[in-house]
């Protein structure tokens, strides 16, 4: 049934009001850890709550442009705080709340660093965080820490923010950046709108209509601090007028079946996930445990945000073929926070297409084939460049660059990093790949140091800092962290550590301490831990660890491991 689609909104603020007005019967449902509906709100209710949220920020004296860190799990409290901050003219920044088991210290340190680097006006988190901040003698953080309960009790005042315009920065998105240090991506209202509408078109391309004319709902377990969750699910649903079902990420990780159950329950659905999510479904749902799962209404399964692994896609298709899942539903895509989200989509709709791994591709990712990620979204160009930034002919591997209305406005308060990533309007993605003769994109690796392990982005310095705190290293004695991948499991973390310690028993004790530290603080098992003599880790003349070179030496077995 064709529905009249209202004119595109100019800003995300307008998009909320437009959803309330034109899609009043649609809305967002928060699900609990067992997949039951906790609370569903219609778009009019969501708008009212966001306006109330904005009023609370106004009472607290928040001024336009100020940074509000929102460190809460998927919940109405989180959305009311985030959307409320945006409606108040402030810049919301969603921060991942901590891991479930162990590791509070690393998380607290991370938030302290963000409070300082973003000069945050407030960080709203659970009550315990605010208490801890005072107890830990971190005055800067304690001054801005706000318990969610306290925010909730604040009376809503009058909002006096200037009307948002398309060119204004709407929010900040945290990303690892190319050197593994946290950066805040500035996304303008008009870029967010463009990305959602262009995705609407691209996902619908195989059907000849925008996806909003075919689908009724999205089901997501992605965290709202992640671009795929925020832009790809939340904004897309609001702008397209779809129902959205939100599972907390922990609920999916504990019970992946909940995601699949919901995908079969709400009319025609579509959903994105990283490869890791599909892999988890394959690993955790045996053939015998599929009763009650019907995936015939799940028409489009986007896969992106990390390297798409053919073994995972094949295994998922095999496992769920008898449950109505069609292989053509898989829609590989490519994007990144600096592109708002989506840059390319497979628009053929024939399922995953692959080519053999070309010569010159990075062996560290353990791929034997590369996956077609399709063509750029509307008004967007993609090209491949060499080390000097020169465009390369089709088929050659180089850095992927993109240009168009969805590209970010730069990193907040970091003109140097911005200048490295935005070169004459072209976004230097840090991902490596090639374009085939049809202009379709394939990724072969990345230039970035971030580790992507089981769906999590981990910055190498987090591991290195931990290792060096055990060994008393740093300065002359360094460590280097990177990832290597083997098959469907994806990437695993490897740590190489320089040491002067000659006694193997003492080195074993150090290794154990490092593994326990990394395990407790980062919830990360190490696939390998290698000790080498001091000075053996390659560094630049300024002493920066060259992680890609280190990884190459590891894979080629030219590192002299101390045993």
């Amino acid at each position, binding site marked *: 049934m064709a529905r009249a689609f209202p004119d595109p909104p100019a800003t995300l603020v307008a998009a909320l009001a437009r959803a309330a007005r034109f899609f009043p019967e649609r809305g967002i449902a928060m699900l609990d850890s067992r997949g039951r509906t906790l609370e569903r709100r219609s778009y009019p209710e969501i708008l009212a709550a966001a306006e109330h949220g904005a009023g609370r920020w106004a009472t607290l004296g928040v001024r336009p442009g100020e940074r509000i860190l929102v460190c809460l799990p998927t919940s109405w409290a989180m959305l009311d705080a985030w959307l409320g901050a945006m409606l108040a003219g402030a810049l919301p920044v969603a921060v991942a709340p*901590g*891991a*479930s*088991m*162990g*590791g*509070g210290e690393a998380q607290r340190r991370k938030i302290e660093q963000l409070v300082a680097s973003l000069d945050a006006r407030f960080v709203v988190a659970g009550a*315990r965080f605010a208490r801890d901040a005072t107890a830990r003698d971190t005055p800067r953080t304690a001054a801005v820490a706000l318990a969610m309960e306290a925010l909730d009790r604040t009376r809503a005042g009058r909002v006096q923010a200037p009307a948002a315009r398309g060119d204004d920065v709407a929010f900040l998105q945290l990303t690892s950046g190319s050197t593994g240090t946290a950066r805040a991506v500035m996304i303008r209202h008009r870029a967010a709108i463009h990305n959602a509408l262009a995705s609407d078109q691209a996902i619908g391309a195989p059907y000849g209509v925008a996806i909003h004319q075919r689908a009724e709902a999205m089901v997501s377990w992605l965290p709202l601090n992640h671009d795929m969750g925020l832009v790809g699910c939340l904004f897309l649903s609001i702008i397209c007028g779809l129902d959205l079902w939100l599972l907390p990420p*922990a609920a999916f*990780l*504990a*019970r992946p079946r909940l995601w699949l159950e919901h995908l079969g329950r709400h009319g025609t659905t579509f959903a994105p996930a990283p490869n890791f999510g599909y892999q*988890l479904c394959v690993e*955790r749902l045996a053939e015998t445990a599929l009763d009650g799962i019907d995936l015939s209404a799940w028409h489009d399964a986007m896969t992106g945000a990390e390297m798409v692994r053919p073994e995972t896609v094949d295994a998922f298709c095999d496992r769920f073929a008898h449950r109505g899942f069609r292989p053509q539903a898989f829609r590989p895509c490519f994007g990144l926070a600096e592109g708002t989200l989506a840059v390319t989509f497979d628009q053929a709709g024939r399922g995953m297409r692959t080519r053999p791994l070309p010569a010159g591709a990075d062996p560290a990712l353990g791929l034997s084939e590369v996956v077609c990620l399709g063509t750029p979204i509307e008004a967007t160009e993609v090209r491949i460049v060499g080390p000097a930034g020169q465009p390369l002919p089709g088929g050659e591997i180089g850095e992927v660059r993109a240009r168009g209305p969805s590209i970010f406005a730069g990193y907040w308060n970091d003109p140097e990093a911005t200048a490295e990533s935005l070169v004459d309007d072209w976004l230097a993605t840090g991902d490596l790949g090639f374009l085939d003769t049809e202009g379709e994109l394939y990724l072969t690796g990345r230039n970035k140091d971030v580790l992507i*392990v*089981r*769906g*999590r982005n981990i910055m190498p310095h987090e591991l290195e800092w931990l290792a060096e705190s055990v060994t008393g290293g740093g300065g002359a004695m360094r460590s280097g962290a990177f990832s290597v991948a083997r098959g469907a499991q994806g990437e695993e973390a490897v740590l190489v550590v320089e040491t002067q310690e000659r006694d193997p028993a003492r080195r074993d004790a150090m290794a*154990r301490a490092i*593994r*326990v530290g*990394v*395990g*407790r603080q980062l*919830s*990360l*098992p*190490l696939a390998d831990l290698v000790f080498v003599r001091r000075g053996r880790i390659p560094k630049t003349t300024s002493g920066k660890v060259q992680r890609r070179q280190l990884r190459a030496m590891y894979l080629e077995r030219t590192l002299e491991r101390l045993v």
Partner: protein
Amino acid sequence: MDNKTKTLNIISKLSGKPADQLVPADELVADLGIDSPKALQLLVELEDALGIEISDDDAARMDTVGDILAQVAA
């Protein structure tokens, strides 16, 4: 089957280490490879098998097999 046995069986299943070889000092992540997704699975299976609820705060304090046994099978 008592709670301790049920608990060790679940940990064994998720880690691949035989239940009779598990010791209280075993670190969930470093020794048993139980990363974030597996940790969530572990919590869910413990809750279901033992008929209990484990709060986020309690879960945050579980680093070893011994920590879990102290919390759920005391």
